[in-house]
């Protein structure tokens, strides 16, 4: 008769085992039953720990390697697309005068952005690997972009032939540009922006479910682990009473090993939950907000050019500029003049809302405060330029100066702001990448380590009771 006759598991295992243990009269039978219970508890610890580790792994995969990076990819796509239209507007506005960095440079940037956008879209599967609706969206962006480029090409060609001074182009060119920019603003850009939001939703929902699943898993490991320890200690006591030996060393080893495994698992799950939280709170949330802020900033900056380019729509462009500015940095203001004033007053005290407001209230990382300051100062510079441009543009005499300012100083100041925004994002991006890497590193080896530890403990339990059982042969 050997101890290994105990079956590893049966469907209603634990209750059946307990019931049997109660009815078993012989000493070896009872020892066997308790040992069986212990092995069962080891299997249970293995199962709940394995599930929790899998939850952590799934969370890290979606947030760190899937939807998370797609937020960055779609954000870059939006920026490239939006900047194409901004450059096109700039070229048409400056006419034959080489204002700012000049016509050739603007066209060069336009081409760069176009190839960036195409590259991102042709790898559309990277933007949305598993979602057919999102892939359909990526394809329809590509189609609309084709039509946009055609209209833009016609507008550019005609505008060059007509050679005009800085200011709104001919009506024909204006109509072509109107069609092109409508296509971009009403069709292409919303789709790209919504892709970013979709991925943000995926990350948020994955985080909510996986973070709490990991913590729930940790509680289960504690609970089932406690049961395992009680059974092992109970077995130890039972043997000590009936065989008058103080300690069964092998069983003691199994108990210590179990304690170590439970503690290590609880520690791992605690740190995995914290890596997920850091990746989300310090990294991802800010990366998403800031990439939305960058997208909207670029588009608002283009609205400033369009305001000068399409005078018949100037009122609308001014209103959407204010709307977008308030989305980026909200201070209560019914019009732009009040907005500039409020901005100057509230910037130092950081009493404002919007994307930058949320970031200003959540400073946790080294270097973040300085980068945030640069971003805010950059933004203030951009708004000061905007005020000067609009006040110049209201008089016929000032229009040329407004256009020159837009193309030169305002364009440089916007780049300064944009670069500051990019550096601020990079700080959060690094926090995100670090937390995900730490999470991945923490999990490495657990695929093998966890089952190996469970087997070792089970074998130790069996090896511990075997000599006692053999005394009954």
């Amino acid at each position: 008769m050997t101890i290994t006759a105990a079956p590893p598991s049966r469907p209603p295992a634990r209750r059946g085992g307990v019931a049997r243990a109660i009815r078993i009269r012989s000493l070896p039978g009872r020892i066997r039953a308790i040992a069986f219970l212990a092995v069962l508890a080891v299997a249970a610890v293995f199962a709940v720990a394995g599930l929790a580790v899998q939850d952590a792994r799934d969370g890290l995969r979606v947030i760190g390697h899937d939807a998370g990076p797609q937020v960055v990819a779609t954000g870059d796509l939006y920026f490239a697309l939006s900047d194409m239209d901004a450059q096109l507007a700039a070229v048409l506005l400056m006419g034959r005068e080489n204002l700012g960095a000049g016509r050739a440079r603007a066209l060069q940037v336009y081409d760069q952005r176009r190839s960036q956008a195409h590259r991102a879209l042709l790898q559309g599967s990277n933007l949305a690997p598993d979602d057919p609706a999102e892939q359909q969206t990526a394809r329809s962006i590509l189609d609309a972009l084709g039509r946009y480029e055609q209209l833009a090409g016609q507008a550019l060609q005609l505008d060059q032939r007509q050679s005009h001074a800085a200011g709104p182009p001919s009506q024909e060119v204006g109509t072509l540009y109107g069609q092109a920019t409508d296509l971009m603003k009403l069709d292409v850009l919303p789709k790209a922006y919504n892709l970013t939001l979709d991925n943000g939703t995926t990350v948020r929902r994955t985080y909510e479910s996986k973070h709490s699943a990991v913590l729930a898993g940790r509680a289960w490991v504690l609970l089932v682990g406690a049961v395992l320890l009680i059974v092992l200690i109970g077995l130890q006591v039972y043997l000590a009473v009936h065989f008058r030996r103080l300690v069964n060393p092998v069983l003691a080893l199994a108990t210590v090993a179990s304690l170590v495994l439970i503690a290590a698992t609880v520690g791992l799950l605690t740190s995995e939950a914290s890596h997920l939280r850091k990746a989300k709170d310090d990294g991802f949330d800010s990366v998403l907000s800031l990439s939305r802020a960058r997208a909207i900033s670029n588009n608002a900056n283009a609205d400033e050019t369009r305001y000068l380019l399409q005078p018949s729509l100037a009122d609308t462009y001014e209103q959407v500029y204010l709307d977008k500015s308030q989305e980026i940095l909200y201070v209560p203001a019914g019009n732009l003049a009040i907005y500039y004033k409020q901005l100057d007053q509230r910037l130092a005290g950081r009493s404002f809302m919007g994307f930058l407001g949320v970031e200003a209230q959540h400073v946790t990382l080294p270097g973040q405060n300085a980068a945030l300051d640069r971003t805010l100062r950059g933004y203030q510079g951009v708004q000061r330029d905007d005020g000067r441009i609009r006040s110049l543009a209201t008089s016929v005499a000032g229009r040329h100066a407004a256009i020159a300012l837009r193309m030169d100083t305002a364009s440089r100041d916007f780049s300064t702001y944009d670069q500051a925004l990019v550096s601020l994002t990079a700080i959060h991006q690094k926090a995100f990448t670090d937390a995900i890497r730490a999470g991945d590193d923490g999990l490495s080896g657990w695929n093998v380590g966890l089952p190996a530890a469970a087997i070792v403990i089970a074998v130790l339990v069996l090896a511990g009771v075997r000599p006692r059982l053999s005394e009954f042969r």
Partner: protein
Amino acid sequence: MRLGALGAALLVGVAGCGTGGGGESIATKDTLVIGVAKDQPGLGLRKPDGTFAGFDVDVARYLAAHVENKPKKVVFKAVQSAERESLVRSGKVDLVISSYSITPERKTKVAFAGPYYVAHQDTLVRQSDTAIKNVRDLSGRRLCAVTGSVSWQRVTVERNVRAQLVRVPTYGDCLTKLTDNSLDAISTDDLILAGFAAQKGRAVRFVNAPISDERYGVGIKQSDVTGCEDVNKAITSMYLDGTAGKLLTRWFGTTGLHLTTTVPQFEGCG
């Protein structure tokens, strides 16, 4: 089993965290109370039999039926412009879909799914009044100001045009006063004006000088991020399956307005 009790306590604690505060999401409800306008022809209008009709009403029906995983029944409730934020915040309505423009001000009080459409503010005047060619010509003229609407502010505050405001509770009152010469202009969203213009035939005309983008959002409680995301998904499918285009054509196809049938850029939830 004190350790067991500890484990169970931990489990309860964790489960408590998992639900995330903020009250019930519309995602879990079977019936949604949706606030719509009762006096805006083409958008939301209460008919004599008590039922509602209009573009916003059809959008509401579609969205309720297409919220992910769980189609919902709809109960419509007439809402006035001025009470929309408070009704959403108090939970008396689950959603507001009534030509409800997303503005930074309002976003401090409620969240917005969508926009499901971007309208443009324009001006409606009497057919005989040819002096008004754009928004600046409203200076010194009598402009309708509906309580709780932001439209007149776009003229007098944002554009700084010194119009005399005539305060009334609804756009229906604006129209009555416009035609009986108690005021000179109504400046608001083209979709709202289109519905009224259709009623009055040749008595009124569009100035055709848009001054803004009005992003029509779905008002929802700020805490209900999941519900807001679900509504956005439903709006995306409304455009992908062609329903949005059909509804726009059904309600505004004959008005001569330029209609956009591609999905708008969403505001984002939370």
